[in-house]
């Protein structure tokens, strides 16, 4: 399999008045051509920071990339000049954000925003670009595209603006799409419509990095999944592997704590306690205080990712399995 995006040892920290936050710590993963990789974790675990860093959307200061490389198409996205990166943004790697209402410009109508993207990346006249934009609105299922090209984002519902965002992301036929919680703000019925669209584009060999906190979505959409906890990747593997036999205790606990839609009245197995503060991660394993299997070594040493067949997990107990 050909690697499309390769993130190596990426560490990012933020300087705040209260101290330095190590938002993500030596995160690495790769995405193959035509693959859908899921990135899952609780709020504050560093999912969004990871995704934003790919297109260098982390404001600096306060953010700082301490180490690491993001290789895309044999180029390190973190070290190329910004002018070159601008040509990649949108055309080769595009992004769908969680809040379509804040991600679209409130001052420009939908048509002009679509045209702007098309004209920035290609030598194309306004009229032609407008026609292409209108065609795309039709493709993603927005009724009356001729009229809606003139609509401003506040005139559209959440589902419709998210579809406009998706049209914008798909329009230039990118190789990689980063979707950061694309359906979290939407109802399940609209979510199903959006996923239908995303499955269509998967057929065209587009890769997708899908960030979510919902394990059900991961199961539906992804080929592989990376689980993050407190700024680190704790487990990576195929969907089948992770769901059938989760190796890391956090992944196990996460899967157990989801209420499923079938009726069974056992008590939900919740994870005790809460995520440690990013100002002050404990020495040793970061999951130690919430884990059922913690022993001495977990409190003293920090576990590395252990490789087992096609899986990786950050736990001392994995080898013994």
């Amino acid at each position: 399999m050909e690697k499309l995006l390769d993130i190596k040892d990426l560490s990012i920290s933020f300087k705040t008045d209260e101290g330095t936050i190590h938002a993500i710590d030596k995160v690495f993963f790769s995405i193959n051509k035509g693959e859908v990789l899921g990135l899952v974790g609780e709020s504050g675990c560093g999912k969004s920071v990871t995704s934003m860093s790919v297109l260098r959307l982390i404001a600096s200061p306060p953010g700082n990339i301490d180490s690491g490389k993001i290789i895309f198409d044999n180029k390190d996205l973190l070290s190329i000049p910004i002018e070159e990166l601008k040509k990649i943004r949108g055309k080769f790697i595009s992004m769908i954000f969680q809040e379509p209402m804040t991600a679209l410009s409130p001052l420009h109508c939908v048509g002009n925003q679509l045209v702007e993207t098309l004209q920035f990346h290609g030598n194309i006249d306004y009229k032609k670009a407008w026609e292409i934009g209108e065609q795309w609105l039709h493709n993603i299922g927005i009724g009356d595209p001729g009229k809606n090209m003139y609509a401003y984002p506040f005139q559209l519902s959440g589902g419709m603006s998210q579809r406009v965002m998706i049209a914008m992301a798909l329009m230039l036929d990118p190789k990689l799409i980063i979707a950061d919680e694309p359906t979290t703000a939407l109802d399940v019925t609209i979510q199903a419509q959006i996923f239908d669209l995303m499955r269509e584009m998967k057929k065209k060999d587009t890769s997708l990095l899908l960030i979510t906190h919902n394990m059900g979505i991961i199961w539906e959409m992804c080929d592989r999944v990376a689980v993050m906890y407190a700024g680190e990747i704790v487990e990576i593997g195929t969907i089948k592997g992770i769901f059938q036999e989760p190796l890391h205790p956090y992944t196990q606990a996460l899967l157990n704590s989801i209420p499923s839609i079938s009726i069974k009245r056992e008590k939900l197995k919740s994870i005790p306690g809460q995520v440690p503060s990013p100002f002050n991660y404990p020495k040793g394993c970061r999951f130690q205080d919430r884990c059922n299997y913690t022993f001495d070594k977990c409190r003293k040493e920090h576990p590395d990712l252990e490789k087992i067949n096609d899986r990786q997990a950050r736990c001392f107990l994995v080898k013994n399995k």
Partner: protein
Amino acid sequence: MVDLKTNFSVLGISDLKTWFPIRRGILSRTVGYTRAVDGVSLNIKQGEILGLVGESGCGKTTLARTIVKLDPAKSGSILFEGNDILTTKGGNIRSLRQNIQIIFQDPFSSLNPRMTVIDTLTEGLIEHKMIPNRQKKDKALQLLNDVAMDSDSLYRYPHEFSGGQRQRISIARAISMKPKLIICDEAVSALDVSIQAQVINLLIDLKNKHKLSYLFISHDLSVVSYIADKTAVMYLGQIVENADTADIINKPLHPYTQALISDVPRIGENKDKRTILKGDVPSASNPPPGCRFHPRCPIGVQKCTTDVPRLENKGNNHFVSCHLV
């Protein structure tokens, strides 16, 4: 409307309408109404959890707010232990407010940022003269214990807590008044799954301990299916299906409920057997004629565009409003 039995019920809502006027022009004349809640009948028995699901904008929250008299009802009745909430006046409203508590979705805006936990938890008790001032601390400690929080939280402010802990404080505040009914309006939606599970377990434990009834509002069917005894499905201000949760999940009758259930991503199941609804929820100020679901319905017929379906009992107290069932 269907006459639901109101015996032994804590809350009996019948044909409730909450319409908001749309005003235009310099004389601000009423030119129309947003029919947020339009003819809802529901019944909650003692010790029961009624789940209420539906898409955003379908009127779930307005219904909750109407029950606690935060929004004015246009017509209908809400019987709480036999007394109509809508006609209750004066001092009786105070006892009503004590008996019906509400937990809101966002724990960041529902707690007063300038009040310590001990004050937040005992404000209602002291206002209602349920405890003397000197018992304040003991009572607050006991409440914190009920929701599994440390006693050192007493003199801290809301900003010092995480979302899950704040929601626990909101729950403690709600149970402090010894209510009979608690309305949970998306009470766990803003929480991460691991914390969500903690709070759901807590709500179930408290219900059993204090013999509470819940109206549990959520857009998340998997959470509702887990916690609720009965489930009502709401669409554009009306209840379209109401039955035991097991019946709703296993054999939903209304096409909207069927689509809603099939659209929930679930682990370990085939991904392709989905009903994908077209379009968005129509506006509540101009609902479609006939069955309100007909523009999006996958199986609609001619009759649906003209005749309004009624909520009917299809056996085993499974109520559904659809011409085709």
